[in-house]
């Protein structure tokens, strides 16, 4: 156990700090270069693009992916019959291997008039869309797939939280003559506050590391419109014709990690105080 953690966890963590200050290419011996790697990354014009794209992905993912599971879960919690059927249908996309999901949607997004989505649009009289081939539509298309693949998990988390809301609260509100909408607004949502914050942070942590969708759908294109931070790290390290620029890759990883570490500390605090209640 010590060996596993030592070699595959602690050693690489230390290494990543060391390497971010080194120039390494596996051929010549590594040399210390101070903050050069960080400067180099920050000056790379793609860095800003990647950060902007990642933020844009996160914002879109919140717009699409945050309200939908909540609305669905609140509605589902009121289902009296065949509740299991609802949950199973909602969760089904989550069990599809992510690579399969992306590759399948990539085919759905076929830009020709006989593409799957374009055929469906044609039925309602909308012309063919370029989907992932257009600079503006590519990112929303990626987010749409990611939402499809992830919403089920969030729905189940909300459903579990909804069963934890004490029924007495609703009884009390009814004595005061509260309508259904007022009950949702004044009881359900405030009671879910903790879990809503947690899923929010988890979603930001997840989207900050988004890789699979841009890598498999568009490889960062068209015109770098979907290149994300993790994809840039990957390019520095593994898609460099001059041999991997591991220094720049670890420097960028560390910067991303700082940001994520802050978030996970907040997350850890929240879950701790939340599970104590």
């Amino acid at each position, binding site marked *: 156990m010590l060996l596993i953690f030592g070699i595959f966890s602690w050693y690489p963590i230390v290494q990543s700090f060391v390497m971010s200050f080194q120039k390494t290419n596996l051929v010549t011996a590594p040399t210390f270069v101070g903050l050069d790697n960080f400067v180099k990354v920050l000056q790379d014009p793609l860095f800003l693009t990647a950060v902007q794209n990642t933020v844009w992905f996160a914002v879109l993912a919140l717009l699409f992916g945050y309200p939908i599971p909540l609305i669905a879960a609140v509605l589902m919690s009121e289902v009296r019959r065949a509740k299991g059927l609802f949950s199973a249908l909602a969760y089904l996309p989550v069990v599809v291997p992510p690579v399969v999901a992306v590759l399948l949607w990539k085919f759905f997004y076929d830009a020709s008039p006989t593409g799957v989505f374009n055929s469906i649009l044609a039925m309602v009289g909308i012309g063919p869309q370029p989907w992932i081939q257009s600079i503006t539509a590519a990112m929303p298309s990626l987010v749409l797939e990611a939402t499809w693949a992830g919403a089920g998990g969030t729905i189940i*988390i909300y459903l579990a939280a909804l069963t934890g809301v004490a029924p007495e609260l609703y009884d009390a509100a009814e004595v005061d003559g509260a309508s259904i909408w007022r009950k949702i607004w004044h009881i359900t949502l405030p009671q879910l506050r903790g879990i809503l914050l947690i899923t929010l942070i988890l979603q930001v942590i997840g989207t900050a590391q988004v890789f699979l969708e841009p890598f498999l759908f568009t490889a960062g294109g068209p015109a770098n419109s979907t290149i994300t931070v993790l994809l840039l790290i990957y390019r520095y390290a593994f898609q460099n014709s001059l041999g991997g620029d591991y220094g720049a890759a670890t420097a960028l990883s560390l910067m991303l990690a700082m940001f994520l570490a802050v978030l996970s500390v907040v997350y850890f605090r929240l879950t701790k105080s939340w599970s104590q209640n």
Partner: protein
Amino acid sequence: MSKTKIPDAEDRGIVSVADWTKPRIRRTMRASHAVLLVVLAVSGLGPLLWLGKAALTPTQDTLRTPLAIFPNGIEWQNVVTAWSTIHLDVQFANTLWVAAGSWAVQIVVATTAGYALSILRPKYAGVLNALVLGTLFVPSVVLLVPLYLTVLDVPFVGISLINTFWAVWLPAGASAFNVLLVKRFFDNLPREVFEAARTDGASSFRLFWSIVLPMSKPIVGVVSVFAIIAAWKDFLWPSLVLIDPMVQPLSVRLPALQQSIELGVYLAALAISSIIPILLFLVFQRMFLRGAGLGGAVKG
């Protein structure tokens, strides 16, 4: 109050039993539930049914009329070709191997680490605990490059694990999350049992093997489910360390196939790759959904 006599009032939701008796509310709820069911069925089941259909449809039909259902009959050959000519059987077996090995390593590491930290508690247990839990805050992104270089040339041993399953199995074991889960579980086991066993002269190993392990079936189950699902889903790491197609799992092999093979066969390959997880989900639905709900409380 009269409504407490209705059995359903016990597990009531937002809409009260009294509300349910109002026709307008009942109709709205029914309608919105029906709409929700249709939306869920179309979005959740739709793409998968389409994939199942496309896997058995001749390529030309899928290209020309993607939404038609078997316009020119069924093409079983797609599946046969994907399985035997493209040799998806090899990657299928690899996927099982990767999942089984990651599972075994994770169980061994998590239970022994949990045992050491929670029950044996050597003097340095506090430091060790902090070191393990500290890695929870280190996102896997940081590890990508240094871990890759580590696997390329394992320290002290000097061998490369590239293109061996060990490259996936061993790093999977270094999961602080698993250790945390197991340790928390062990912390709540009754201490008297262990002390009794000790006085009867049980060795540390015997205590672990014959007493602690049999008591920890529930937590081993949870860790197993997480481990197998994660291994089946993983893409980035195995794609870096398993370069030879003969050792690649399905998730790594599929993207490479898309350019090189006929569409119908390719879609059949996608279908083959999803069938096991979907079947597992349908059979163990409760366990999956409970795990997902639990995931919200502990980790996403």
